[in-house]
């Protein structure tokens, strides 16, 4: 009961934030509010028992997308012109669609109803079979990596496509030209601010360490390759902000990042093909080792590693592509 009241409070706050985002004409505040929106929705996800999703939404929505949006604002403009016309049409379409969805809601199962079809079909099978067939405590990881591993392969390639797209649009593609632009005054990050620099430098190793923990602990608690990739890249981005982009690129060059992207994607697909080569289906990890459960464990660790590599590589590549653009101006 208390939880429901708290949740309703948060949901209402969420709506207020959303309205604030739309009304704000200052894009910088809109971006900040969007980060806040993501954090609030992450808390709601946590209340609704979705720990993995909450972690991801906080890392991605509040972290990565805010960084990307700020990067884009720095390259464009952070004021919005006064919009003209079309508001009534937009309002009409939006209200009608919302009313249709609310109309549908009255026949939907209530929040937490144990009789809801989603709790009767398919899901109980996962909860029951995970200990027997895969034997990892985190059922979300089991479904993500094994039962629906093909979706996750697709997810990996979605982020891979985005990386290729950003490189195609923003970088010159050779991976070399960007570096020569870097050592300008602006690239020196926060060098002249002592306090953030010291504290930031102190935090970077811990962020990366936490990222690795999330990567390899994903079988047991919330976490996995994607969240880990987001965290590790957050650590490296922080490092780039403190020590300047050039230093960050010295640690992980464009070429190394490209290698990570391709290696992750190839690793995941390769594990899938190994299933076929060993006489079973694509992405069947049980046949990787003599013991099916050990095979599942190995497969899950490998593909999570692949996801982690590609995500880190893509996110950092995107960050550097935006940053390199800024220096060219």
């Amino acid at each position, binding site marked *: 009961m208390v939880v429901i009241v708290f949740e309703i409070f948060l949901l209402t706050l969420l709506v207020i934030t959303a309205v604030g985002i739309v009304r704000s004409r200052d894009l910088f505040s809109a971006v900040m509010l969007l980060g806040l929106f993501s954090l609030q929705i992450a808390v709601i996800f946590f209340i609704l028992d979705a720990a993995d999703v909450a972690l991801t939404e906080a890392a991605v929505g509040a972290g990565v997308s805010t960084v990307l949006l700020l990067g884009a604002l720095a390259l464009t403009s952070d004021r919005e012109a006064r919009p003209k016309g079309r508001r009534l049409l937009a309002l009409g379409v939006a209200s009608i669609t919302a009313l249709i*969805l609310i109309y549908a809601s009255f*026949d*939907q199962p209530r929040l937490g109803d144990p009789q809801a*079809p*989603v709790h009767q079909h398919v899901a109980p099978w996962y909860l029951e079979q995970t200990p027997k067939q895969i034997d990892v405590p985190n059922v979300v990881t089991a479904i993500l990596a094994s039962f629906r591993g093909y979706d996750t392969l697709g997810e990996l*390639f979605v982020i891979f496509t985005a990386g*290729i797209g950003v490189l195609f649009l923003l970088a010159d593609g050779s991976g070399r030209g960007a570096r020569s632009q870097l050592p300008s005054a602006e690239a020196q990050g926060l060098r002249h601010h002592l306090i953030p620099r010291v504290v930031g430098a102190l935090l970077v190793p811990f962020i990366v360490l936490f990222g690795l923990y999330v990567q390899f602990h994903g079988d047991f608690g919330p976490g996995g390759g994607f969240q880990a990739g987001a965290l590790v890249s957050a650590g490296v981005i922080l490092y780039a902000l403190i020590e300047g982009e050039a230093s960050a690129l010295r640690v992980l060059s464009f070429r190394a990042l490209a290698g990570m992207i391709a290696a992750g994607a*190839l690793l995941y697909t390769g594990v*899938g093909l190994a299933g076929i080569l060993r006489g079973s*289906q694509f992405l069947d990890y049980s046949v990787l080792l003599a013991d099916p459960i050990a095979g599942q464990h190995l497969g899950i660790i490998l593909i999570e590693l692949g996801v982690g590599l590609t995500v880190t590589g893509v996110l950092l590549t995107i960050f550097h592509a935006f940053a390199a653009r800024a220096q060219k101006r």
Partner: protein
Amino acid sequence: MSSLATHLPVLQVVVPLLTAPLVFMLRQHGLAWAATTAASLCAFAVAIELSTAARGGATLVYEVGAWPAPYGIELVVDAFSALLLLMVTGASVFALLIARRSLEAEIPEQRLHLFYAAWLLALAGLSGIVVAGDAFNIFVFMEISALATYVLVAGGPRRQALPAVFRYLVMGTIGATFYLIGVGLIYMMTGTLNIADMEMRIRDVSDLRPVLVAGGFITVGLALKAAVFPLHAWLPNAYTYAPNAVTVFIAACSTKVSLYVLLRFDFVVFQGNQAGHVAQFAMFMLPLAIFAIVIASILALREANLKRMLAYSSVAQIGYILFGAGLVSATGLTGGIAHMFNHALAKGALFLAVACLATSLSATAVSDLAGAARRMPFTMAAFVIAGLSLIGIPGTAGFIGKWFIVVAALEHGVAGALLILPVLAGSLIAVLYIWRVVESAYSSPAGDMATRQEAPLPMLATLWFVVLLNVYFGLQPSLPLDLARSAAARLLLP
């Protein structure tokens, strides 16, 4: 080999998917092109193999990860999907054969390997949608193909490509998200994501409102992605400003894949629950289809830019496909589905001709084509034949689907006969807009346009091969018709 044959449905997707990171690392654009073409050819061979099996009446089912169906993800290849696979992989192969020469002029060399990687991802995404037997898996691959297609379109040489692709991105994402909402509502009411399982379980759902709304959201979302008439705003500019080879590829297959998913959901999933759902579908879709045919054809007629004229013509042709489906009869659906294939052939050939024209003409407007026929006689001759196929002249591929659609409409008596009028009007307008191009191209040239300067031989050969395919499938239509017939029979199964 027989063991490999069972893996064909997944290899259809994995081959291009696996090649993409390799091409990304290659950096040398000639090699990148070769690898992309080789992977496309492999995918095409797999599709041919699958369609042979599907033509024999087989439905191939593949359980990824060896997990049983509603729990794991299932891939399903039947006649309908086999036809679509042929279109997707075939379009990719033919577009790639001209892409080498055509793209070098449009995209900086050092970015070409990224472009080819995106191409492979688009191919894998589209094939992935077609073979998927799981509603959420369709969403994932829809996003791969969509993101990759945005990259491909953004490679266009003119700056207008950027706003065009931005609009495409926003509308495409809204469409995909609407689809996701619809799938979520069905999942809420049935507890499953597997399409075959949904079909069974949705019959037992007693609370109809969420299912009805889910039907609406899925239909609107996919209609947005398929550029069904009032939601087509993204299409003309995206086709116009994309690189020529990309236009060949996406015009031939990308909207049709969305239509495929739309028909699957509306006929297979919802029909089980909604008594009269099919009638609702017809009431909703037929008027849209008629508007699409008439209005988009008129827009094409008024359009000065050659590529945009053909793009509007595509919107009109999507109208024909929907018109056939909206008649909700075996003949109508057969016609609509066969028209998907035949239109892909005709429009693919036309855009191939445009790509060939672009090698020595800088003109983009229809009126600037004067003398083109003297300068590039083979290209223009091919354009004329492909145009005849688009109009639907007997003896070309474009005729078959339209003929079935007309016959299906006549089955409905007087009302049906009245419904034919817009179809015929659309074909008449098509005659006019193709004639505009032909007239302009065969008119007397101005100045140096008289010198002969044909497109390079490999491009011309590809163009003529596809044009001859148009004629072949016009005279010998059994392959698309067989597949379309069994697809229609499956969709109408109660």
